[in-house]
């Protein structure tokens, strides 16, 4: 028996990654079908992306796209909600419809030999959803109750508050995608029907990944989704410009809370931004991995939190950048101050060679794991299609991450992460935290109730 070596073992030769190539067929009704054949397991994942999503909601009807998606299976001309649910479950299919900011989607996973029947159901929902009563009213009531419940969830409160602080109440990104009490109360059947007609249209992409043969799949999709046609005009999204706000601290009171949810955020970048790759590398170093600066400082060194993070939401338009953590109440102000310090450090110091290399390797070598599950492959193909990134985007990913150097990271940090222009949110016990937050001197501490705007914001209309 040999003794174990004490030195870290060297890796073997790197494998050649083959990014799956997806077939491409445009059907007569405009639907683009992308197919990847993977025959290891007899299953199929499918994803239909219709390129107008929740960002086409008006802020006064925030939640419309999300509710329309949820009620898609509420009934069709020929079938009730119960019939539809039984049919889907009997196939063993897991089918869902949801609204992302950039698109409305229907996705499902099913045994490969049940693909045609599943497609028939999807085609029926797309063309013929009727949003009947009483299912409609029940769905709206359920959504209102869920919104109410979220007001007890400190993480959800923090998310709502920071989104509003960054993008403002007049911008759809500043509202909850699933809606708020007052916006959902303005949604009726007419609005849902119009949303369905305007956003569920065949100028879309349908991705199928799994145990299929391309020609056969295209034929069966053509016979179902290919027959789908919708008169009228598609929805258009109109988004106002966003200005970064001078720093303030919005304090949402949760009396007695043992932890505070702390968030710091500002406007980020769009998916197609030329700053995308430097920002991805920046984020990995700052708060996008376990060994990131934020997690190391706030969790491993400070012991303030179970985990600290940061993330850019790269949407069709610039979504938020948010950093945060759930911290022990007694260290709230300190955690906020240190978060801002780490953000500032990204702007004034170049990241170390070791950090840069570690982040880039984490991203470039690690990205191949996103090609493991069918659903993940489908998502990546759809994402490239949605944003016009080109079929070779993932092939070029490693090279483009590789090009990012420390200067590019600092330059991006300088332009995007000015701590004097970020918004901060604390959801916690105001009695315990207000004084120390004020002493930080980073900005005024504003009492905030989620569901109602902070005192001073006057653009909220009442009916």
């Amino acid at each position, binding site marked *: *028996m*040999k003794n*174990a*070596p*004490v030195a*870290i*073992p060297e*890796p073997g030769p*790197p*494998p050649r*990654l083959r990014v799956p190539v997806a077939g491409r067929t445009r059907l007569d009704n405009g639907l683009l079908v992308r197919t990847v054949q993977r025959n290891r*397991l007899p*299953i199929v994942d499918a994803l239909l992306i219709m390129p107008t999503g929740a960002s086409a909601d008006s802020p006064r009807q925030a939640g419309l796209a999300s509710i329309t998606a949820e009620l898609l*299976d509420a009934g069709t001309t020929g079938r009730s*909600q*119960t019939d539809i*649910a*039984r049919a*889907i*479950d*009997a196939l*063993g*299919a*897991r089918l869902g419809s949801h609204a992302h900011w950039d698109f409305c989607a229907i996705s499902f*996973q*099913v*045994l490969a030999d049940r693909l045609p029947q599943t497609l028939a159901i999807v085609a029926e929902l797309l063309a013929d959803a009727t949003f009947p009563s009483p*299912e409609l009213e*029940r769905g709206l*009531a359920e959504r*209102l*109750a869920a919104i109410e*419940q979220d*007001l*007890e*969830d*400190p993480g959800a409160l923090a998310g709502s508050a920071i989104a509003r602080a960054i993008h403002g109440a007049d911008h759809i990104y500043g509202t909850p995608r699933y809606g708020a009490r007052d916006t959902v109360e303005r949604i009726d059947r007419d609005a849902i029907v119009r949303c369905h007609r305007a956003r569920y249209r065949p100028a879309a992409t349908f991705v199928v990944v799994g145990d299929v043969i391309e020609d056969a799949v295209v034929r069966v999709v053509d016979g179902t989704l290919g027959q789908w046609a919708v008169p009228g005009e598609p929805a258009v999204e109109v988004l106002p410009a966003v200005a970064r706000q001078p720093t303030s601290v919005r304090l949402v009171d949760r*009396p*007695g*809370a*043992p*932890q505070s949810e702390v968030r710091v955020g500002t406007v980020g970048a769009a998916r197609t931004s030329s700053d995308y790759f430097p920002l991805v590398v920046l984020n990995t170093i700052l708060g996008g991995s376990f*060994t990131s600066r934020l997690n190391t400082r706030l969790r*491993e060194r400070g*012991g303030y*939190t*179970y985990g600290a993070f940061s993330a850019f939401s790269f949407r069709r338009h610039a979504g938020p950048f948010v950093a945060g953590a*759930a*911290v*022990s109440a007694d260290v709230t102000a300190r955690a906020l101050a240190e978060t801002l310090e780490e953000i500032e450090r990204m702007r004034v110091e170049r990241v170390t060679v070791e950090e840069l290399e*570690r982040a880039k*390797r984490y*991203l*470039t*070598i*690690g990205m*191949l*794991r996103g090609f*493991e*599950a069918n659903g993940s492959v489908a998502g990546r193909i759809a994402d490239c299609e949605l944003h016009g990134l080109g079929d070779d985007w993932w092939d070029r990913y490693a090279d483009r991450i590789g090009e990012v150097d420390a200067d590019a990271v600092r330059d991006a940090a300088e332009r995007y992460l000015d701590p004097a222009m970020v918004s901060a949110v604390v959801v916690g016990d105001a009695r315990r935290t207000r004084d120390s937050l004020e002493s930080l001197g980073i900005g005024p501490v504003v009492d905030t109730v989620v569901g109602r705007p902070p005192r001073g914001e006057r653009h909220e209309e009442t009916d």
Partner: protein
Amino acid sequence: MVLSPDRGLPVVAVNLWYSVGSRNERPGRTGFAHLFEHMMFQGSENVPDNGHFALIEKAGGSLNGSTWLDRTNYFETLPAHYLDLGLWLEADRMGGLLPAMTQEKLDNQRDVVKNERRWRVDNQPYGDWDERIQAMMYPPDHPYHHSVIGSMADIDAASLEDVSAFFRTYYAPNNAVLSVCGDFEPAAALPTIEAYFGAIPGGPPVPPIPGRTELPPTLGREIRETVEQDVSLPRLYLAYRMPRYGDDRFYAAAVTSFILTWGKASLLYRSLVRGSPVLQDVTAFAYPVVVGASMLVLWATVRPGVSKEHAESALFDRIAQLRDIDDADVVRAKNLIESRNLAELQRVDERADQLSMYTTLFDDPARINSEVGRLRAVTTADVRSLAAELLGEDNRGLLWYVPGGGE
């Protein structure tokens, strides 16, 4: 040790199960297995402080661990050409954790774990449900009586001596199963595993699980608890004692949980969330635990404007319908189970974990392929008789969270 090569993507999963969990904790040290799990990431003989994480990230991999009632697992998923790194890191901490342990690291991870408890349990609505359900369903001298995360007081009491003793008792090759799954060559990996792990001495025989491990098949009564919290909607956590995981009848319990709440055509969803709506949501699942007995657990949130009494009685009426459930419901549930099983097996890390599980619990890794067959073999008669015998008033615990008070 289980080696399962397959050439999908060039990735490998390394997975270790140690047969130690919260069930092995002695009184006054609840939560220790989980705190110890955190210590395993703080470095080892040849790995500096946070080195484990940094090395894996630099290799483009991901890693984590988790603690449960019956076991603690550690896993990393790596590009295939980094297999040796994953194996070496696991061997280094299995053989040489203690030289790297310091009071400072223990104190720091204690704070992290206390924050984890705050985040998961103390600062969440309904957050302490599993702690209360376990305490309700398992008597005080049963090893599942206390929660995995443990109490703040016990977490505070943990010492460096405890860390050493725990390591020496439980973290030895004779108490571990290693699974490797993915794009690798067993003929090349075996000598490496031998070289890395072979030098680690076996540990002493593992002490028996403390406390009373045998339980009668039912509670023998109904147990109730009501907690006031700052929530707007009442929520019920309902538990029934079930046979332990591995017992034939456990599979009927698992299928029953699917019949009850999986999919929008499931019994409770279609009748109580849709149909005559009294619930906002409902979820049921079977706990796969092996000591004495397991549980079928269900939670349901009451709709606004519905009384909890009405919701409770509607729920029990529907659950009673399982006693003459239709074939169609059973078939539908089994189709969903089959789909889900295949979907899970797509990922190499999931396969590796299942291989470790089946080997640890049943000494049979091939169950990864045969387990779904056990679920498929459950008949309508099995479900009906399980419902009649075990889903009654004499075998249930009810935990209600109701609005009021507030912290």
